[in-house]
């Protein structure tokens, strides 16, 4: 069975932002000919960015409503032959796993675009990232968005890889040009680290390609090998690749892929690029980084490791779970010692991504649904947290937790928004983070009893570091130095309130998201669960 083209919706979602990039590039190229003013160029590119992120968001709504959650296969497929010589296809489609991620990307990207606007930034603040080289920034932001959509919809490994790599380029520049004082170090570290992971992924991909059995492309031509995810997953040859240098090649491929993805999650011990990247990145880029990019790691593990190499995944499940628990507890302890608010939030992301690993490694329906729901829920909460860090940085030009005090008196609305987001992040029941954590734990407990108990102790540490942060920054006597800070402005409200509403809504009624993913995910883990006798 092969997936025929049924819709071009995903292609539009993926490439509309890229068209925006192109449009900005064209106008820039025309600049020597037509003398555009700087103001016009800036505002033009801002408008293009909002439109370029808004259209995919609207299309995501259409996608969400058209998606049939009872169908566990791919939907909205657009399938063409791309490079026939290497049997590479343009093959995009979504299943229950992808569709939630695509929607998340649409939401987070749009919010990040709004957060990139200079509204409410003091007029004399020329160094603010939203006023520096605006057209370039907006072009790269849109390019990044396209690449992210591409990763989540690609169903051909080569196409996936192209989007995966394409994402690095704008991210590198966005951190390296518009970032903070140590931006170059952070950008290079991010770039090289991720590239190292990509090399492993590339090798694994090539190994898979040359192992795969002969098949046909979508246009009927015969192909000796394939990059098609669906075909690779169904191909018995992939599961047993034989030996290489006396070692099981399939397991080596699995490990290579896993490390490549683990760097992105990021998983201990490959996580140290993240705090640096976050601290230096401008706020909207942190929002995207935490909200979407990290999820690509776990998405990749599910899409490639779980779907294509199930036997090896079963073999490695204890490893995944142990690293998940290390992420949760270790990163939470590291948070306790942080002095920079953004660094603290970055480490808390590391900690919370650990839940995803723990949940997925259990192969239970609650575990896997909890894991993907945690990806969603963290994708809503962590952008809010980074926006909150951005609010204070825009005003005070630093983020030292000990450098404030009594902010609750000066910025009550900000304090309320912060409090709610922190509570969501520490897993307060009634907010979405709790549902995800509870499902991960519930799913993992029957399989990894002791590990889950250790992981659950993370709830104590998490509460401690968040509340301690609140106490030091927001409570206590008012710091006279900051008594004139303004409360949140309309741009910040526009970005924060939708996220807060999402946290509350999905805390009391998570079913819309869970329903989308449940069937696909449970079909996905069924053979894995069978293999371990669940």
């Amino acid at each position, binding site marked *: 069975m092969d997936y025929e083209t049924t819709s071009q919706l995903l292609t539009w979602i993926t490439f509309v932002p890229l068209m925006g990039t192109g449009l900005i*590039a064209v106008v*820039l*190229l025309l*600049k020597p000919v037509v003398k555009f003013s700087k103001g016009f160029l800036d505002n033009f590119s801002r408008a293009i960015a909002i439109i370029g992120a808004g259209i995919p968001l609207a299309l995501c709504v259409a996608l969400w409503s058209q998606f049939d959650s*009872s169908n566990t296969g791919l939907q909205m497929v657009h399938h063409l032959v791309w*490079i*026939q*010589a290497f049997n590479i296809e343009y093959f995009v489609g979504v299943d229950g796993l992808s569709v939630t991620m695509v929607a998340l990307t649409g939401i987070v990207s749009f919010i990040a675009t709004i957060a990139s606007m200079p509204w409410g930034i003091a007029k004399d603040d020329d160094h603010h990232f939203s006023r520096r*080289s605006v057209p370039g920034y907006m*072009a790269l932001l849109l390019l990044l968005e396209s690449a992210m959509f591409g990763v989540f919809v690609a169903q051909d490994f080569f196409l996936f890889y192209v989007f995966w790599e394409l994402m690095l380029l704008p991210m590198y520049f966005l951190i390296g040009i518009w970032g903070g004082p140590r931006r170059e170090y952070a950008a290079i*570290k991010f770039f*090289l680290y991720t590239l190292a992971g990509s090399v492993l992924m590339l090798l694994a991909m090539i190994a898979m390609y040359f192992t795969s059995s002969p098949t046909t492309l979508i246009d009927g031509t015969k192909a000796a090998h394939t990059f098609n995810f669906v075909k690779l997953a169904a191909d018995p040859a992939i599961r047993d690749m034989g030996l290489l240098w006396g070692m099981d090649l399939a397991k080596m491929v699995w490990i290579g892929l896993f490390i490549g993805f683990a760097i992105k999650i990021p998983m201990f*011990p490959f996580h*140290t690029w993240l705090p640096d990247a976050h601290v230096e990145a401008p706020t909207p880029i942190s929002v995207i980084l935490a909200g979407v990019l990290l999820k690509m790691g776990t998405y990749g593990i599910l899409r490639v490791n779980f779907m294509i190499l199930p036997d090896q995944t079963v073999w490695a499940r204890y490893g995944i779970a142990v690293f998940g628990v290390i992420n949760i507890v*270790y990163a939470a*302890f*590291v*948070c*306790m*010692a942080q002095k920079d608010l953004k660094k603290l939030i970055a480490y808390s992301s590391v900690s919370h991504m650990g839940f995803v690993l723990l949940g997925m490694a259990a192969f*239970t*329906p609650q575990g896997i*649904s*909890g894991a993907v729901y945690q990806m969603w829920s963290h994708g809503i909460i962590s952008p809010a947290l980074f926006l909150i860090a951005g609010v204070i940085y825009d005003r005070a030009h630093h983020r030292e937790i000990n450098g404030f005090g*009594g902010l609750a008196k000066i910025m*009550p609305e900000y304090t*309320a928004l912060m409090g709610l987001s922190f509570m969501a992040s520490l897993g*307060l*029941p*009634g907010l979405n983070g709790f*549902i995800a954590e509870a*499902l991960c*734990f*519930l799913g993992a*407990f*029957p399989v990894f*009893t002791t590990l*889950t108990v250790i992981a*659950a*102790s993370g*709830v*104590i540490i998490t*509460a*401690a570091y968040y*509340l*301690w942060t609140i106490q030091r920054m*927001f*409570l*206590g*006597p008012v710091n006279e130095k900051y008594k004139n800070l303004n409360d949140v402005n309309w741009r910040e409200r526009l970005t924060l309130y939708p996220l807060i509403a999402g946290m509350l809504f999905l805390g*009391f*009624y998570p*079913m819309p998201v*869970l329903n989308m993913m*449940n*069937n696909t995910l*449970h*079909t996905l883990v*069924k053979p894995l*669960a069978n293999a371990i006798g669940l």
Partner: protein
Amino acid sequence: MEVEKTITEISYLWLIPFFPAIGAFISGAFGKRLQAKWGKAPIIAVSVTLPWISFVIALVAFIKLLGLDENSRTMVTHLWTWFDVAGAKAGMAFAMDPLSGMMTMIVTFVGSLIHIYSIGYMHDDESFWRFFSHLNMFLFAMLMLVLGDNILLMFVGWEGVGLCSYLLIGFWYTDVNNAKAGMKAFVVNRIGDFGFLVGFFILFWAVGGAWSHASQSGYTMSGHFTITFRELPAMMDAIAGKELWGIPVLTLVGIFFFIGATGKSAQIPLYVWLPDAMAGPTPVSALIHAATMVTAGVYMVARFNFLYIHSPTAMTIIAVVGVATAFFAATIGVFQYDIKKVLAYSTVSQLGYMFVGVGVGAYWAGSYHLLTHAFFKACLFLGAGSVIMAMHHEQDMRKMGGLGKVMPITKWTYLIACITIAGFPIASGFYSKDEILWQAFNSDYLLVPGWSIWLVGFIAAALTSFYMFRSYYMTFTGTTVKVHGHEPQEQKPVITIVLATLAMFAVLTMVLGIPQWLTGANPVLEHFLAPVFEAAENLPKVFTGEAAHHIEPWMALASIAVATLGWIVARWLYKDRKNPLPLKLKERFSGIHKLIYNKYYVDEAYHATAVRGFLFTGRAASWFDRVIVDGMVNFTGRIGQGLCVIDGLIDKYIVDGAVNLLAGIVHFFGDQLRKVQTGKLPSYLAGFALGLTILIVISQFLFDVYA
């Protein structure tokens, strides 16, 4: 004999928590502006009225509950499916049975009264709106806890009340000590919550930890899987034999849930947050840290009675911890001077009694003490609040005295509440406490003899009577003190009416628990709650029938005797504050006094071990992350750089001549190319586009050749 039970569906239970939630939202989101524009009136109109509406609805539901057949008193409102993942299903549903009905009445009634009191107490506070928003939110969370139909919904309320407690303890957050007290409360509670969660995982695993692939679309849980309170009792026999880590599952679940209860209900070893929680405004201490939230642990254990009766081990732990806490906290209470601290330790101690009740299997007695305590302790706290206001926020009893003459209503209500808690048979506290002590004495199900628990509780009862009357005499008798040159004044009716109502209920609720040996019939409340606690009906007792009837009155007399003893000693030492003996005793035994006055240095011990260990681990992990993990990354980077340098040296000195030429060429092109590197993004993008085009053209060409 299996009794046929039916469940009544009704539509409006959700309104009970809903109205306070609305109040919290309106006061929280718009309160500041409303208060700036129209003063306190709109806040009162919203946030005080809505809890009363909630109370009325609760009352209507409760009356309907009473009208149902005795064994079928369960009403359910199902709103929507909260989450459902392959059989792990929780409904957004509320249920009222006799136990939660009783709790709902306490919470809405005492809660609404304290809202009224707060109008007076918080009158001059600029954050009036914020206080009422938080207080409303607390009611919402507490009602979720009580009415939630399943364990996880209960947990929503459980954590929600913790959050509100945190917010209200730190209400005056500009004082960093208040903020720290709030943080301590939340974090200590989280330790308990960790226990609650683990207990829940184990229970979940035990009732449905295996899946079968029955349907095409995925999984169904094997067995009948549920986390709903109503359906769990039927599962207990099936899982009673299961073990985890070599321990019977139900014991394990029971212990972990009890860890949760020790956090929320301030028992050893997690009680340390409650005395500090007195940093919050006094109405908060009365409502949250005495009458309602802190009893949540007792409520939970009573709720899980069907589970605990399978595990004498867990029950013994509860009873022993409870009685130890009752005694330990009572000793500290004896030596405190801060009137709120006395009441705080008294609360810890009384909660200990409640746990003795539910620990020995006398679930109704524990619940009854919960009910009477809600009234008398709220009355005591609010009386103390009245005193504190009159004294201009002075809480040290040594600086008070003679207030009885100027504050008669406060004095009398405080005295009535003292009589109630001390255990004189003219008020409710006697009946509830005595029932607990008797049931402990008579219990033959625990791993320790029942009389040993009784004995410790009995001694603690004497201490209770003593420290309560001590606080009464120190505060209200003697020469009237002057504050800022004026005599303190009695409070406005908005406060005194609430005090009088609570004192009245503290006495009147005695009718619910008059024991069988006096009336010949089972106590009203025992009968009412019996369907909830039917699993615990036939626990083994030491004395039954006639023998019990002969012993019980003597036990009651003994209780009255120790209460009287405590009262007489307190009167002798502290009446009119003339007796110099207390000061002499304090000097004579200064070592012991210092030890107990400083609460046995438990806080200091915790700080030196747990807190510092925790912070140290954090710093160590951070150091490891920065120096070792990230150090490795940077080291790898350095090696890369180093290889480049070596490469460069080889280049320079070994293949010098030949390469020099090449290098020259490269240098030349490099110089030329640098001109392209303008630093302008447009030209980069142009270059990027050009390069891409060339690549595509080349690849097309190559593919044509090879295809």
